[in-house]
């Protein structure tokens, strides 16, 4: 990504050059199809931002998001593990760009964020993961990219963190169970990873497969859910600047119980959409059935957008309890798309959200 101007930030701290509008995205799709037909495909960094203008005008570019990203990103946000070292979640991440996003929100404490977790692989009680995840090893780590991509490939955690400048993103997280938190994530826009992955024109959805470590994840030995846990997004959702691959919180690496070393964060959707400890990303043509869709098709839909007007059979969705308010903190009214309507509302224009819950 080319960092144009660091001082002028829009609320989501995304450089205008990074934003791929729906039209541009669709146009590019069209072009990809055309290009494939006319043999232009080879060598084109089709989804890379650098290629944007060239693509639309029909040219081929040598732009490579990876190299461009490297040139601007800090040399080494974290060091690779030395022999005998283990992953240290209290390690500071270097070169994180602060953002204006989430200003005015009261950030939850590190303790609350790291002791109140829904991560069924480490137990179904929210206090379980902080204890049970201790033996899990999130480094060395790599994510494999498969499916509708130019070429299947793998990216290490260290390289992932160098794809683009890491950013701090203070997001609200709304759980389907009716509570919410404000979390200062550190991560990279999912869009940057998608561009690096170079999906083909057939890629309509992106599926995230998460760790299924029988030895260190006690939960996966019982059939509570259909392991491994998977989640998925529509491509335009994935390209939305808000969608984040988080690699840290509070300026440090992710604790195991929060989904170390890399997890998805989609702040306008219920928390369960954010798959943790991602091992595999698949670009697919058909809408994947996610873990929670399989577990309760009438309760959990593909979109799972935060929506106070669409109720859940178990929990009220019109209000939520902000964590950190203590005994008498009370509830607040839940906002459409968790308050991110202006950023993501257009993705669902014309859709019946009661049907597509």
């Amino acid at each position: 990504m080319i960092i144009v101007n660091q001082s002028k930030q829009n609320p989501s701290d995304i450089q205008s050059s990074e934003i791929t509008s729906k039209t541009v995205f669709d146009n590019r799709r069209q072009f990809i199809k055309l290009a494939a037909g006319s043999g232009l495909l080879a060598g084109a960094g089709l989804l890379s931002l650098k290629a944007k203008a060239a693509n639309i005008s029909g040219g081929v570019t040598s732009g490579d998001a990876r190299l461009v990203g490297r040139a601007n990103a800090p040399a080494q946000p974290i060091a690779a593990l030395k022999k005998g070292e283990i992953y240290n979640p209290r390690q500071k991440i270097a070169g994180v760009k602060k953002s204006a996003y989430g200003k005015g929100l009261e950030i939850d404490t590190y303790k609350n964020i790291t002791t109140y977790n829904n991560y069924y692989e480490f137990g179904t009680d929210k206090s379980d993961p902080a204890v049970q995840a201790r033996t899990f090893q999130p480094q060395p780590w790599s994510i494999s990219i498969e499916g509708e991509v130019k070429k299947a490939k793998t990216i290490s955690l260290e390289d992932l963190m160098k794809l683009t400048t890491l950013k701090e993103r203070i997001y609200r997280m709304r759980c389907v169970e009716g509570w919410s938190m404000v979390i200062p994530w550190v991560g990279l826009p999912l869009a940057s990873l998608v561009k690096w992955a170079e999906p083909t024109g057939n890629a309509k959805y992106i599926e995230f497969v998460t760790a299924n470590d029988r030895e260190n994840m006690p939960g996966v030995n019982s059939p509570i859910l259909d392991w491994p846990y998977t989640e998925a997004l529509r491509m335009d959702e994935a390209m939305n600047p808000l969608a984040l691959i988080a690699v840290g919180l509070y300026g440090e690496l992710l604790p195991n119980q929060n989904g170390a070393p890399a997890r998805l964060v989609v702040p306008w959707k219920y928390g369960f959409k954010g798959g943790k400890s991602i091992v595999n990303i698949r670009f697919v043509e058909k809408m994947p059935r996610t873990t929670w869709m399989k577990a309760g098709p009438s309760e959990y839909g593909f979109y799972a957008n935060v929506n106070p007007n669409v109720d859940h059979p178990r929990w009220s969705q019109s209000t939520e309890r902000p964590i950190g308010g203590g005994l008498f903190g009370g509830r607040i009214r839940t906002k459409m798309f968790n308050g991110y309507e202006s950023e993501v509302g257009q993705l669902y224009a014309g859709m019946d959200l009661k049907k597509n819950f």
Partner: protein
Amino acid sequence: MNKNLIIVVKSIIWLLALIPVVRLFWLEFTNDLGANPVEFIEHSTGTWALVFLLVSLSMTPIRLLTGQVWQIQVRRLLGLWMFFYACLHIITYVWLDFNFLFDEMVKDVLEHPRILVGFAAFVLTIPLAVTSNNVMMRKLKTKWKTLHKTVYLIAILAVVHFLLLVKKDLTEPFYYTAVLLLLFGIRIYFKYKTNVISVTNKK
């Protein structure tokens, strides 16, 4: 069992029954109720109400199994502790959880089977608590026994309320369900047995 022993047993029940609520105050005092203290209290008071319900329901099966009768004398006390924790559970819901947002609570009760079932269980408990004293017992005569049979329905509703809460891992509510089924099983077994005996005696 003599009177003094009953007093000792009742005192022990009082002391034990106070522990969960004292613990909650202590945990709040030391700031150890966790990230979501309201949920913690809601789950804790609900669980203890269910525990006291099951313990009070196990008095008859124990009598049937052991032939002793003293348990019946502490059954009312156990039932009232169940009512105490059920009240704390409801107060937590109305005050701490929903902060008296009545429109939201009405919606919650009507739209979510889990809440509806729990709410029904609580409402059914009120007449039992009100008629638990000796005066009402004498006044209602045979109707009292019929009325207090509602406790079986309350127990079923309470367990269903718990089962519906859980997203996927049913282990914990399953234990309570198993205990309830066991208690029902013992009663049914003895009822069947006595029926058989009375039938054979008639012959």
